[in-house]
């Protein structure tokens, strides 16, 4: 079955080429919106079915199958193949990418219906799926890097999708440039790997992992991690992700929440064997993850833009995943990647549904002749939407419960596993730091539940606030409506996954405590045990249960507090009260810790100054001067020699004859 893997890659590529070329060449094709949309959706759904087939034909013990298509690059001893690896990890990622991808394609057909660039949007989306599948299925680092850069390009194209708005294209540039910093480190890591084992093939690298020792292992691990901080939006490179929300909402859901941003976690999980040999690198990963989680969570608390809250929430959850990686819970990190893909995609799509509705209101008001302009993403203008958009509300609420870690929804299991691993790491080397990180993670978990309910309650509960806030919008409520089925079906599917997704990784001890015997309920752990390593759990059973109870307590407490503070339109006063309570600290959160300003002051402005004062002067005076001097010399001699050209044909003929005579004379004498 695995030999059909090339189809998984080729079909989205075909979708991209057909829609792209037809759309480019034919105006009338661009108007065939349902053809374009369905073609693109099917081009992702069919690979999903194929992945599912491959998945079903495998079991936890299956050997990795490598499908080699052809040699891509051959130079000296270096060869790189277009080869895809089918193992438990890659097929899991492929299922998430194509599954969530297909749902979001379907959703986009509703969301982008009235957009002029409809064909372009779906072309880019297919290209993204193609690149992402290359990333997760690749059997060597170079092909992985191709996918890595490919998703970066698609992210750039889609963030700047409405490039007429200079802010949006600036956001696209920002994302691309910040990623470039990480990619540079990743490239160096690749060079080091190649120098050490002489190949970039995963098989060769994994069978020679013992060549990586001491400092080398540390540096390769750290450089790869820096690459991951770029793509997966961690401190210090996370600032691009919130700005990336300038793109259409389905893009935010697919690329900037469910799939692309998790590729850093995938990369580190893939190299879990390497990371386990360097505890210092693991610690660094955990510390960065922990800091990112708390920083992003506190910023999310202060945002009013519905998508910005979700963006910071994504950064924070990615931090959680890195915490898991850093404490040796590679499976736990992948678990959170999968569950996060479900509930965060659902949340983003839900927010898209809300924004869609708010846009519609603005549009209808304008139609009515009322000049009302408001930010359709600002949740302070919303409220009470649950009556108008029941499906969106219910799915959004389910996902909020899931992300908050309310028991037995998907987020509960995955977050719990991460906290357990952190606590477990606290018993090992660098214990104190890991305990501190555990503390940070618990605080973050509390904040996560709190700001997510703040978002949900302010948006969907209470009363619709637009009519009271804007003159002329008094009857705006009548224009609110639920989104079309193409948008609500994906929401429901994702919400159901967000409820039940957690059962793929039910912790072993949940069952074994009661039955008293090994039960093998943790499907995900069994599934991935062949392809990843992980730290041994040395926690006693009692501690595990205490941790679970504590996590439940934190999540429920946060939920209840948020409910009390934010239900019934108390949102703005509560925000004000929190601001009062935390004072300067809150201002720091609101200012996003001034990361952007710090980069502006320390890198961008000195860079501009250097260019302006030194490099530009050098260029104009020295480089240009040299080039111009050569030009002037040639010009001077030309001005003397040009008189040879008389324009009279006889002059040339005489010169010609004399020349011939001269040559013959030389030959004879």
């Amino acid at each position, binding site marked *: 079955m695995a030999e059909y893997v090339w189809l998984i890659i080729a079909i989205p590529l075909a979708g991209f080429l057909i829609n792209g070329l037809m759309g480019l060449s034919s105006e009338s094709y661009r108007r065939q919106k349902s053809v374009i949309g369905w073609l693109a959706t099917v081009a992702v759904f069919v690979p999903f079915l194929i992945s599912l087939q491959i998945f079903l034909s495998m079991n936890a013990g299956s050997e990795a199958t490598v499908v080699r298509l052809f040699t891509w690059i051959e130079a000296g001893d270096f060869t790189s193949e277009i080869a895809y690896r089918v193992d438990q990890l890659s097929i899991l990622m492929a299922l998430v990418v194509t599954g969530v991808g297909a749902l979001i394609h379907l959703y986009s057909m509703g969301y982008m219906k009235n957009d002029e660039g409809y064909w372009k949007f779906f072309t880019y989306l297919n290209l993204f799926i193609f690149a992402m599948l290359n990333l997760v299925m690749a059997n060597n680092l170079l092909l992985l890097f191709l996918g890595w850069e490919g998703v970066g390009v698609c992210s750039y194209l889609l963030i700047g999708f409405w490039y007429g708005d200079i802010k949006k294209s600036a956001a696209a540039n920002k994302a691309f440039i910040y990623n470039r910093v990480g990619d540079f480190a990743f490239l160096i890591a690749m060079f080091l790997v190649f120098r050490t084992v002489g190949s970039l093939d995963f098989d060769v690298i994994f069978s020679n992992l013992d060549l990586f020792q001491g400092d080398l292992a540390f540096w390769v691990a750290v450089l790869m991690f820096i690459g991951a901080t770029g793509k997966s939006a961690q401190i210090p490179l996370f600032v691009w992700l919130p700005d990336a929300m300038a793109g259409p909402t389905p893009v935010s859901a697919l690329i900037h929440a469910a799939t692309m941003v998790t590729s850093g976690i995938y990369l580190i999980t893939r190299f879990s064997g390497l990371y386990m040999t360097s505890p210092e690198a693991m610690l660094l990963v955990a510390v960065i993850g922990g800091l990112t989680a708390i920083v992003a969570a506190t910023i999310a608390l202060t945002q009013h833009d519905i998508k910005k809250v979700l963006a910071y929430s994504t950064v924070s959850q990615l931090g959680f995943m890195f915490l898991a990686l850093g404490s040796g819970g590679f499976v736990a990190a992948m678990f959170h990647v999968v569950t996060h893909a479900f509930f965060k995609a659902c949340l983003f799509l839900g927010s898209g549904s809300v924004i869609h509705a708010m846009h519609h209101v603005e549009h209808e008001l304008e139609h009515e002749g009322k000049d009302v302009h408001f930010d359709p993403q600002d949740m302070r203008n919303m409220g009470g939407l649950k009556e108008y958009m029941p499906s969106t509300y219910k799915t959004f609420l389910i996902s909020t419960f899931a992300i908050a870690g309310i028991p037995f929804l998907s987020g509960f299991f995955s977050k719990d596993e991460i906290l357990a691993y952190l606590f477990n790491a606290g018993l090992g080397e660098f214990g104190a730091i890991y305990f501190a990180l555990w503390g940070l993670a618990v605080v973050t978990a509390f904040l996560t539940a709190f700001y997510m309910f703040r978002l949900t309650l302010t948006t969907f509960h209470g009363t619709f606030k637009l009519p009271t806030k804007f003159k002329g919008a008094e009857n705006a409520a009548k224009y609110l409506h639920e989104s079309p089925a193409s948008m609500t079906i994906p929401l429901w599917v994702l919400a159901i996954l967000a409820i039940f997704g957690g059962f793929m990784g039910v912790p072993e001890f949940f069952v074994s405590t009661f039955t008293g015997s090994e039960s093998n309920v943790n499907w995900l752990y069994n599934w991935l045990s062949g392809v990843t390593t992980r730290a041994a759990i040395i926690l006693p059973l009692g501690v595990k249960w205490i941790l679970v109870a504590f996590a439940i307590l934190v999540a429920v407490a946060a939920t209840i507090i948020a409910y009390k503070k934010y239900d019934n339109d108390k949102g703005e006063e509560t925000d004000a009260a929190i601001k009062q309570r935390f004072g300067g600290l809150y201002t720091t959160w609101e200012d996003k810790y001034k990361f952007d300003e710090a980069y502006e002051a320390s890198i961008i402005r000195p860079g501009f100054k250097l260019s302006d004062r030194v490099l530009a002067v050098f260029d104009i005076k020295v480089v240009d001067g040299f080039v111009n001097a050569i030009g002037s010399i040639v010009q001077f001699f030309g001005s003397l020699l040009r008189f040879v*050209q008389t324009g009279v044909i*006889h002059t040339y003929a005489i010169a010609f004859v004399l020349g011939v005579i001269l040559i013959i004379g030389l030959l004879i004498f």
Partner: protein
Amino acid sequence: MIGLEWYLGVSALLFVIGVLGVLTRKNAIVVFMCVELMLSAVNISLVAFSSYMGDVHGMILVFFVLCVAAAEACVGLAIVIAIYRNNITADISKINLLRW
């Protein structure tokens, strides 16, 4: 039997006449005829050498030269006509736009 040197003499004479014509005459058509004269001189020497050395290749080459010369005459005359239409003159000393 007339010796080879006589043929070469005629050829040289014709060639020099052609060169002098090209150098001194101003009418484009006359200059052109002189170029043809030079070509004929070369043809005579080719045929003469060919006969002298008993090698037919030289004669075959002459046919090619004649063909090319015919084609060249065609193009050349067309250029002369084009120049004349533009300048109302075929005096090549007056056609001197391409200079400093």
